[in-house]
């Protein structure tokens, strides 16, 4: 770190002590430079965080204008709130399916286009395009694609002899409709990260493995996967956080329905805090979510760190 700094040379030129005028001026400038960011950090992140913690122990109703301290009542009620627990289950179900499938798909895509051949650039762009399509547009278009009346998905299913169904109006399948869209939209993003990870693996390793007679599968499990450990950790942790916080697609695609079967935690938090205006209760739910995300992320980090020791 020290070699990247200007100050030592300046103070040397001043022949003075290291806390000379130049350094003091540099420090003052530095403070001015981080001031806007620091102000925003305190005002829009840390202050709200503290405030949220306090609100979560209150009965805070925007409309009625009432607020009163009620201890851990919010948290206690949440633990018995079947709707909240169901929303938690839905989010975790989404995560449990999406984490392995999406990670495998992204890694597969990255490996398909890793070696520069003809058109690989074009394919990379094609795979990445869903990432830049905005959430509402993607969800709207998929809503139509899933539609029983004129959606193309059912035409495809019918033409290969599968039964047709409206994914989204059936409580048993609606979540799969969201999962498919979620993976379609996010796989390209993680593909890029895997691609960078793959490019960091030295080709010499594969060369040596081939000389030793290792097959493709062996190369994948003995070289690619272990060497990707750091990238894999990043992808899995990011995917988990995003998956558990799923909300945007739900808003547009199903609005939590049918029958509450796609109501996720963040959707529930929004509904409680801004539809029913129970802000204390909604915030308490948000803290429970925060705790869950934090615990899972820490567990994953420990797991990947342990694996890196070998």
């Amino acid at each position, binding site marked *: 770190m020290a070699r*990247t700094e200007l100050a030592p040379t300046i103070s040397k030129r001043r022949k003075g002590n290291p806390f000379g005028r130049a350094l003091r001026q540099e420090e003052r*400038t530095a*403070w001015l430079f981080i001031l806007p*960011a620091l102000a925003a950090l305190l005002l829009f992140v840390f202050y709200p965080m503290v405030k949220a913690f306090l609100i979560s122990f209150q009965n805070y109703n925007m409309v009625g204008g009432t607020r009163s301290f009620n201890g851990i009542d919010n948290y206690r009620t949440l633990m018995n709130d079947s709707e909240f627990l169901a929303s938690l289950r839905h989010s975790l179900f989404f995560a449990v399916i999406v984490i392995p499938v999406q990670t495998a798909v992204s890694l597969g895509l990255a490996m398909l286009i890793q070696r520069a051949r003809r058109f690989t650039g074009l394919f990379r762009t094609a795979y990445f395009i869903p990432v830049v399509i*905005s959430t509402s547009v993607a969800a709207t*278009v998929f809503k139509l694609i899933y539609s029983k009346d004129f959606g193309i998905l059912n035409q495809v299913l019918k033409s290969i002899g599968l039964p047709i169904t409206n994914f989204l109006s059936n409580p048993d399948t609606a979540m799969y409709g969201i999962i498919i869209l979620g993976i379609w939209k996010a796989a390209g993003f993680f593909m890029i990260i895997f691609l*960078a990870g793959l490019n960091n693996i030295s080709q010499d390793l594969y060369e040596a493995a081939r000389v030793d007679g290792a097959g493709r599968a062996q190369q994948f499990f003995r070289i690619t996967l272990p060497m990707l450990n750091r990238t894999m950790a990043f992808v899995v942790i990011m995917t988990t956080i995003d998956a558990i916080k799923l909300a945007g697609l739900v808003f547009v695609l199903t609005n939590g329905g049918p029958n509450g079967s796609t109501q996720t935690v963040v959707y529930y938090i929004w509904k409680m805090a*801004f539809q029913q205006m129970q802000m204390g209760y909604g915030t308490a739910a948000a803290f429970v*979510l*925060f705790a869950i995300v934090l615990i899972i992320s820490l567990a994953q980090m420990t797991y990947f760190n342990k694996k890196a020791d070998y």
Partner: protein
Amino acid sequence: MWQMRLALKYIIMTLIAIICIIPIVWMVTGSLRPYEELFQYSSSLNWHLFVPVKFTWVNYKNVIFNDTNPFLRYIWNTAIVAGSVTGIVLVVSALAAFAFAKLRFRGKSIFFALFMSAMIIPGEVTLVPNYLLMNNFGWVNSYASLIVPSALSVFGIFLLRQFFADIPNEILEAAKIDGASIMRVFLRIIVPAAVPALITLGLMTFLGNWDSYLWPLIVINDDKKQMLQVAIASFSSLAGTDWSKILAASTIATAPILILFLFLQRYYIQGITMSGVKG
């Protein structure tokens, strides 16, 4: 054998590319056909599932010149907000990142850690207090509530600091010896050298704000001031909506960012790569 394998690989790659692209193609072609046609040719798999029989611009006309759903206005609103946020984020992040990368001050590492710790705080937790804050400021229903709280990008500070740290100190020292002030070094040396990084961050910020849904849904109630994503979502959930009109609106909303992306894709991908490899 080897060639068979390569051919198979290309077939798989093409199939996946079709899956990625087809919803977007369907959206665009669907927006160019009359409403009835969407149903008419959907009973079986055929060519006209995608290719309009009767090509028409009327959906676009209906979407653009519609007083109850003024889509051009939503696009304009969104462009203004996303553009302002992008500009502010670039300035705020660049200043802070420069201080963290090249300047010396007491408590630097502590403050940097403080900034980075904000990455783990999910926006969902601070949703209610931030809304109350906007309410106290009297910013509900105003663009200030969309722009000001988005001024901070912790990821942006992290990203730019990485780039700035790679700029050799010799250049900065030479400028100092010539008597340049720190501000001048920042403006004349650091900023020009970091243009690719700034484009990366700018593009990611702009697209992120173009896509924002939950926060505008909460702080903007006035329909005329609404952001694009919320408008499309509410448009598409109206009962008995004309679907080909929705497809036209979606196409209009997608075209600008798709073009932006296709031209600047290199920068965007570089940004993602950095967040993954160094992060």
